[in-house]
């Protein structure tokens, strides 16, 4: 039996994408396996660690549990679309400058969640940062340096 197929049209990092997919395909699989965007990481499979976080129409989504066809006609942003060529986005630069990463596996999701946070709330307090970022786990840093990175990112984003 041949699996049913359906057409998917979405924008990924500003580029129009048209694909034929199976209804069961997850967004993370389409991004990683079909589009070669491996910056989005697969970890917990159950929507709690945030490593697979991408933005769909500007809102955070765990791509590990999000069916790809739900992106029909929508706008998907991944870590690969954040920098402007060789110039890092202020959030990326803040994570570099303030040691907001170690092994790097949670980093793409962390940065995308930060992007959504700062789009929503450009000047978050520390409790607001900690509350918003609850869906992202880092096993390396102990979070302190990530909170600092986000605070600096907010300042830089406000300035630019």
């Amino acid at each position, binding site marked *: 039996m041949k699996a049913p197929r359906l057409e998917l049209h979405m924008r990924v990092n500003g580029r129009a994408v048209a694909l034929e997919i199976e209804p*069961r395909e997850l967004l993370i699989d389409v991004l*990683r396996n079909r589009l070669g*965007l*491996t*910056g*989005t*990481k*697969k*970890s*917990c*499979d*159950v929507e*709690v*660690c945030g*490593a697979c976080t991408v933005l769909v129409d500007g809102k955070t989504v765990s791509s590990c549990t999000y069916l790809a066809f739900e992106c029909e006609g929508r706008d998907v942003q*991944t*870590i*690969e679309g*954040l*920098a402007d060529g060789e110039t*890092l986005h202020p959030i*990326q*630069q803040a*994570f*570099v*400058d303030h*040691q907001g*990463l*170690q*092994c*790097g*596996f*949670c*980093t*793409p999701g962390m*940065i995308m969640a930060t992007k959504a946070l700062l789009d929503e709330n450009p000047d978050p307090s*520390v409790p607001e*940062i*900690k*509350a918003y*970022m*609850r869906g*992202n*786990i*880092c*096993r*390396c*840093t*102990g*979070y*302190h*340096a*990530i*909170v600092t990175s986000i605070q600096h990112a907010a300042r830089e984003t406000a300035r630019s």
Partner: protein
Amino acid sequence: MHGIGEGVPRKDAWEKVTGQAEYVSDLALPGMLSARIVRSPYAHAWIRGIKTDAARSVAGVVAVVTADDLVGIDPFYGAAFKDQPILAMGRVRYEGEPVVAVVASDEWAAEAGAQAVEVDYEPLPAVLSLDAALAPGAVLVHEEQLRPAGHFHDLSDLAGRQGNIVHDFHFRRGQEPDAIFARPGVTVFEDTVTYPMVHHAALEPYACLADWQGGELTVHTSTQTPFTVRQELAEIFSLALSRVRVVVPYVGGAFGGKCYTKIEPLAVALSRHCGAPVQLCLSSAEAFRTARKPSARVRVRTGVRSDGTIVARHVEVHYVLGAYADVGPRVTQKAGYVALGPYRVPNARIDAYGVYTNTVPAVAFRGYGVPQLVLGYELQTERMADALGLDPQELRRRNLLRPGERYSPDDAPVDANLKQDLEQAAGADWAAVLDEPHTGRGIAISLKSTGAPFVSHAVVRLRADGSATLLASTVEIGQGARTVLPQIVSTALDIPVDQVRMLEPDTAVTPYDQATSSSRSTTLSGLACQRAANDVKEQLREIAGRAWGIDPTQVTVAAGGLAHGERTMTYAEAVRAKFGMNGGEIVGKGSYVGEVGDMPLKGITPFWETGAASVAVRVDPETGEVTVLKARSVADVGKAIHPDLVRGQDEGGLVMGFGHALYEEMAYADGQLVNGNLIDYRVPGFGDVPDSLETVIVENQDGPGPMGAKGVGEGSTTVAAAAIAAAVYRATGVVLGDLPLTPEKIWRAMLGVKARETLREAVQEEVGRIGS
């Protein structure tokens, strides 16, 4: 320029913040197949039969592999004993053990195939707890004669199994503690603590991409030990070491869980069976069923004089190692050796045991068995101080080993100022947080041997333009090795750090390095890198000396060039002078080889790693819930080559220990792991970390590494849980050493205390009434 003591941007940061950094699961080879594993649902069972026909007929399935298919190889592996089969052979020993592997064109087909496999089991009684494993007549997890793997010099006298005890280690000093305990004027304290099974939960689960091509093997894998993996693969598949190439891209967190061979033999066996590259990426839930930390029961008995001087100590520790030994025997003896703590103990006895049970195999974990012990002896320190009416810090100071004093006679003297570490941990303003009700502060201090002989080699290739390539096999697991080791080389050559590039470990290219473990890399691999750079400098001096007709020792090296009086020569000019063209390169070699000797661990520890931390908590009197209010940890690193990275290691290790203290525990019911996923198994999150989290860096240049450095990364983990347990004791008055300190446990214990207090008050009232 080199950023020593200041820090330079991490060399891996750009790749990691842009999503360009590649991990094993991001790699792909032409014709690559995917694999899925069928795992045992039973803790212990005979395998009566396996039906694979239905799985083979699933579209896309290429092969269904069982132990019967592992022909022509030695299908066992293990860091200490070769006791672990690549796929279960006739018998499963824990829930989650790999039994069948399905290889298919993609992950979905492999998954569908795996679900179509039918395995017929005959369940057997299982041993799931330490007591069950040690009981007379207990079911034996292993009955076979164990084969020592021969990987470790310090495990050369592995005897093997007695019942379910797979390895034991004993240490004696002075007189029998029991004899001292009986003396007048000696008060004896006894505490037993338990440390649960916890999982590393690196965000990147285990992943391996194996490519077997007619006896030439290339393996891309997420490991801390590429050379041990190479060794084991060569032994299993009867290949020359030179035909096994292990390449390690970025590793997404390790924490000891990626030390030694894990899923690599299976991935290779599948690639060999199918004649195609096979990628095996485990899920997070499968990672829970691959490795964990040794759980432990620690019994500490200590005799003290009334002034707080420790006169004798007996520590008995049982590490529960699960179904296969992995490196557990080495954890047992290396941690067992330092069970006395950072204290002067004239009369001592240590009995350490590693025990098999039908649970997930226990492996190395940040701290290597020491956090379990620190919980025991430091919680006891607090209790002893109270009973003797002494300040706990005074009691510690009285007994701490001094710099230069020896933990044991043949080992290296202590290269840390423990009193200074303690003072730094205790320092700062605690009054503000401790003024609140239901709060308390706990302190813990530890000493860990880096122990046993170690080998690291490094090669520096100075290019024709004066830039350098560093070949060393330290794995970038997040600690920042690919930044710090180039810093060391750039300092030695006195060239900008951005002129030094370090490659990823590749056993076919980069030189031998024993392991990225034991907080050893900056110090020991760092020495090898520094020596390789110095070797380059010596060769450059000779070139200049010859060109200028002077003795090479008269040539000075500075600012990326060579000089003698008015004459100068850049490195690029020196390379050109040597080869007569704009090409060629100078290759420098450096090594670190540890000192072997007849001492408990068969090798002198290159340095001692210390941990010291102070933690304030509030315990909700109604619910027993613990909130960490403030933490201060001391990283005694000799010299912080990159202070931000030191802080990163120290903070991360501390918070990881908070998880062990407060929430983390792999829960078993009827032999099955019931919380083996990140929903049910809670690791620390953003909300669990206090706003005030501080690392104090102590730099006395007392380490053996470059610029006086010594290791960091495990110290804070060794003391975190003990400091929390001590803080809970201070906040509530209950001594609880049975981790994790869940609200329920604390609440129940507090009720017990209240009940006793009420009883005492009632008795006193009654006594008063009778008296009047």
